[in-house]
């Protein structure tokens, strides 16, 4: 008893110690990502194995792209407000609504087109295989790939056409 109890206490303390050690060693890279100046770009570097030079170039592209993107978003918000006002007017003018819808759609096309340009520029900055991986990733994880349309409502309310057996 005099020998076994200290061994077991040592084992328990060791277990706590090794837990902390394994946890802190294992989370070192993720904590470093979180504490970097631009965590999302640090993630990009980590995920696509980029060099410091690649990252510097991508950071530059990112910084150039964001203000243009925000400008377009602001314009789309503005058009949404105008569209709402036009729809809620006492006498809605279809031509005006049509024009606003077209302008908003054009702005969206421009926005998505710039987004794709940005993705292509970023992918070209990366090593070729990582660039391909990056494009596959943005296709899967951004709005480029639109969600499939939901046809369940249409199917559920389909008009029943009586057949010859009815």
């Amino acid at each position: 008893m005099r020998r076994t109890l200290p061994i077991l206490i040592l084992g328990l303390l060791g277990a706590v110690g090794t837990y902390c050690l394994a946890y802190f060693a294992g989370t070192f890279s993720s904590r470093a990502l979180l504490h970097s100046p631009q965590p999302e770009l640090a993630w990009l570097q980590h995920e696509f194995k980029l060099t410091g030079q690649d990252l510097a170039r991508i950071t530059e592209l990112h910084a150039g792209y964001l203000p243009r993107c925000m400008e377009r978003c602001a314009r789309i918000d503005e058009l949404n407000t105008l569209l709402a006002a036009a729809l809620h007017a006492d006498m809605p003018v279809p031509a005006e609504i049509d024009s606003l819808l077209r302008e908003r759609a054009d702005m969206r096309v421009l926005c998505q087109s710039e987004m794709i340009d940005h993705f292509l520029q970023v992918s070209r900055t990366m090593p070729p295989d990582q660039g391909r991986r990056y494009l596959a990733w943005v296709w899967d994880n951004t709005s480029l790939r639109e969600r499939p349309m939901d046809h369940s409502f249409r199917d559920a309310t389909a008009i029943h056409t009586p057949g010859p057996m009815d």
Partner: protein
Amino acid sequence: MKASDQESDDRKLKVLLSAWNPSPPLPPRFRERVWQGIARFEAHDRDTRTFLMKCRAWIANHFARPGLAWACASLLLAFGIGLGWFQARQHTTTVTAELAVRYARSVDPYLTLP
């Protein structure tokens, strides 16, 4: 009464008292009651022992050999490493997924999350 007479009487009384060996009868079922008292004391002792003492007794019973204690300590160490590693992996996965979403949202204003 003279002092010498009193001394003689004391001596006689002392002799008498030392020779007196009374053996009063024991109360009925005395032996049985003594054993019952001992049993009660032992039961009370068993119940009032502290948790720590019970633990010590359990450890003494189950880890009588130091080899077994070392094996158990090694298992505890391995468990600590395993749990730490597992939780670190979970944390890393969560952080990575969160940063991926943050990147996607930073470049894609149309992104709507489910």
